[in-house]
C-alpha cells in the first residue's frame, strides 16, 4: 500500500501540472475544452492527494513502522486519537495535508469561477494560478518531504509522539490552520487573475471578499485554538514561536484581513445595512470590550514560584486581593505503559474556605526500549473561573519537596470568549450580501 500512496502523490502532482498547462493554453487560445480538461485535472489532483493521505493515515492507525515518517511520529504507546493527529505533527504530513486542502479549495473555487465568471479568460487564469499553487505544494511534498520513505530495517516500535502535541486541540487546530491557509490562496488567485484582465467588476469583488472572509475566519479560529493549546501546554509556545508554520499563518491572517478591508471599502457604500450587519457589529464590539477588559486587568496577574515540602503550607494573594493557602498532600508516582506520572496534590483554601483539591502532574514519556527521548511534560492543574484562572504547574518533585508555579490570571476566560465573538461578528459584518449570487 505504501507504493500506492507514493504513486498517488506523484499522479496528483502530474494532474496539477496538467491543470496549469492546459488552463494557460485555454486562456491563450480561448478554447473551452482545454479549460474544462484543466478543471478536471485539478479535481483528479484532489482525488489522488486524498488517496495518498488516506494511505498514510492507515499506516499511522495500523502502526506500520516500515515508514520512516510513521516510526518517527508514532508508537505503540500513543493513544489512537493522537495517532490521527500524529499524521500532521511532522513536516511531511503537514505538507501533504496542506496539499489536500489546497487541491480541495482550488477545485471548488475553479468550478465556481468557470460556472459564474462571465469573463472566461479570467476564469481560466484563476484556474491556472490555483493549479500552480496546489502543484507547488504537491511538488514540495513529493520532492522534499516525502512521507512514504521506507526504513531498510523495520523497527519493532515507533519513537512516539512528542508529548507537547498530545492534546485534543492537536486534532482540530492544525486542520483549521491548513484549511485557512488553503482558502487564502483563492482570493489571491482571483485578485491576480482580475489584475491580468484589468477587470474588477462587483461580482468578482464579492467573490474575493467572501473567500477572504472565510479564510480570515478559519485562520482566526486557528490562532485562538493555538493560543488555548499553548495556554494549557507549558513549553509549546517556546517550541512554536517563530516557526515557518506560525509565521506563515500570521502573515496569511494579516493579508486576508487587508483583502477583506480593501474589498469592503467600495461595497459598503452601496450595500444596504441589514439586520445581519447590525448583529455582526454588536457581536464584534461586545467581543472587543471583553478583550479590552482582560487587557486592562492583565497587570494584576500574580505568579508565585514555590518550593514546598510534603505537608507544609504556602500562602498567596490572588489578583483580586483574596488570600489563599495551599497545603501539599504529598506526591505520588504511577507507572503506566509508555509513561511515568508524578502527581502533586494540593489542598487550597480561599479566605479560609476549603476549595477542591488541585492535582498537577509531570509526565515522563518513554519510547521503544524504555528510552526517555523527550523532556518531562507538565500537565498543569487549572481551575477556570470568570473572575480568574488558577494554574498550578509542577516543575519538579523529589525527596518530599516539590518546585511549582502558582498563577492567578484575572478575566482570562473573557478573552477567549471575546476572541471567538470578534471572529464571528467580523465574519457576519463583512460577509458580502451578493456572495451567493456572485460566487
Amino acid at each position: 500500500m505504501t507504493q500506492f500512496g507514493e504513486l498517488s502523490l506523484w499522479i496528483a502532482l502530474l494532474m496539477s501540472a496538467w491543470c496549469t498547462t492546459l488552463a494557460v493554453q485555454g486562456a491563450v487560445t480561448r478554447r473551452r475544452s482545454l479549460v474544462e480538461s484543466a478543471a478536471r485535472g485539478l479535481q483528479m489532483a484532489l482525488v489522488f492527494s486524498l488517496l495518498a493521505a488516506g494511505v498514510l493515515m492507515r499506516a499511522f492507525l495500523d502502526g506500520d513502522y516500515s515508514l520512516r515518517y510513521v516510526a518517527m511520529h508514532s508508537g505503540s504507546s500513543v493513544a489512537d486519537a493522537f495517532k490521527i493527529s500524529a499524521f500532521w505533527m511532522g513536516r511531511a504530513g503537514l505538507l501533504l495535508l496542506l496539499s489536500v486542502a489546497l487541491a480541495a479549495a482550488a477545485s471548488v473555487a475553479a468550478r465556481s469561477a468557470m460556472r459564474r465568471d462571465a469573463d472566461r479568460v479570467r476564469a481560466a487564469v484563476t484556474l491556472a494560478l490555483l493549479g500552480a499553487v496546489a502543484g507547488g505544494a504537491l511538488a514540495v511534498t513529493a520532492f522534499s518531504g516525502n512521507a512514504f520513505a521506507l526504513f531498510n530495517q523495520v523497527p519493532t516500535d515507533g519513537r512516539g509522539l512528542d508529548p507537547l502535541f498530545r492534546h485534543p486541540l492537536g486534532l482540530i487546530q492544525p486542520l483549521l490552520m491548513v484549511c485557512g491557509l488553503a482558502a487564502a490562496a483563492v482570493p489571491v488567485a482571483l485578485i491576480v487573475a482580475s489584475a491580468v484582465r484589468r477587470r474588477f467588476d462587483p461580482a468578482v469583488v464579492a467573490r474575493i471578499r467572501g473567500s477572504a472572509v472565510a479564510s480570515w475566519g478559519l485562520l482566526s479560529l486557528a490562532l485562538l485554538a493555538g493560543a488555548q493549546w499553548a495556554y494549557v501546554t507549558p513549553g509549546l509556545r517556546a517550541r512554536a514561536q517563530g516557526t515557518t508554520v506560525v509565521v506563515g499563518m500570521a502573515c496569511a491572517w494579516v493579508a486576508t484581513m487587508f483583502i477583506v478591508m480593501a474589498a469592503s471599502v467600495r461595497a459598503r457604500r452601496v450595500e444596504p445595512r441589514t439586520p445581519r450587519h447590525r448583529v455582526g457589529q454588536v457581536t464584534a464590539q461586545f467581543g472587543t470590550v471583553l478583550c479590552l477588559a482582560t487587557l486592562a486587568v492583565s497587570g494584576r496577574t500574580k505568579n508565585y514560584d514555590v518550593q514546598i515540602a510534603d505537608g507544609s503550607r504556602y500562602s498567596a494573594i490572588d489578583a483580586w486581593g483574596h488570600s489563599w493557602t495551599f497545603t501539599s498532600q504529598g506526591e505520588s508516582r504511577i507507572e503506566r505503559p509508555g509513561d511515568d506520572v508524578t502527581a502533586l496534590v494540593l489542598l487550597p483554601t480561599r479566605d479560609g474556605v476549603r476549595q477542591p483539591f488541585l492535582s498537577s502532574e509531570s509526565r515522563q514519556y518513554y519510547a521503544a526500549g524504555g528510552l526517555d527521548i523527550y523532556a518531562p511534560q507538565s500537565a498543569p492543574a487549572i481551575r477556570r473561573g470568570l473572575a480568574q484562572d488558577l494554574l498550578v504547574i509542577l516543575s519538579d518533585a523529589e525527596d518530599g519537596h516539590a518546585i511549582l508555579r502558582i498563577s492567578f490570571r484575572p478575566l482570562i476566560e473573557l478573552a477567549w470568549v471575546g476572541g471567538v465573538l470578534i471572529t464571528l461578528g467580523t465574519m457576519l459584518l463583512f460577509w458580502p450580501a451578493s456572495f451567493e449570487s456572485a460566487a
Partner: protein
Amino acid sequence: MTPLAIGALLAAGAMVWVIAPIFSEEPHESDSGRPASRAADDAAEAAILRWREESK
C-alpha cells in the same frame, strides 16, 4: 492485483476522463464569441463548386 497495478489503472482511467473534453470538442466550439457565419459558408461552398466546374 498489486497496489501499483491498481494505481496505474486508476491513473489511466483518470487521464482518460481528464482529456475527454479535448477529444469531444465540436469543430466550432472555440470560445471566440463569434457565431459561425452562414454567408461565409455559402460563399465557400460556391467557390468550391465554381472550382469544380472550371476544372472539368
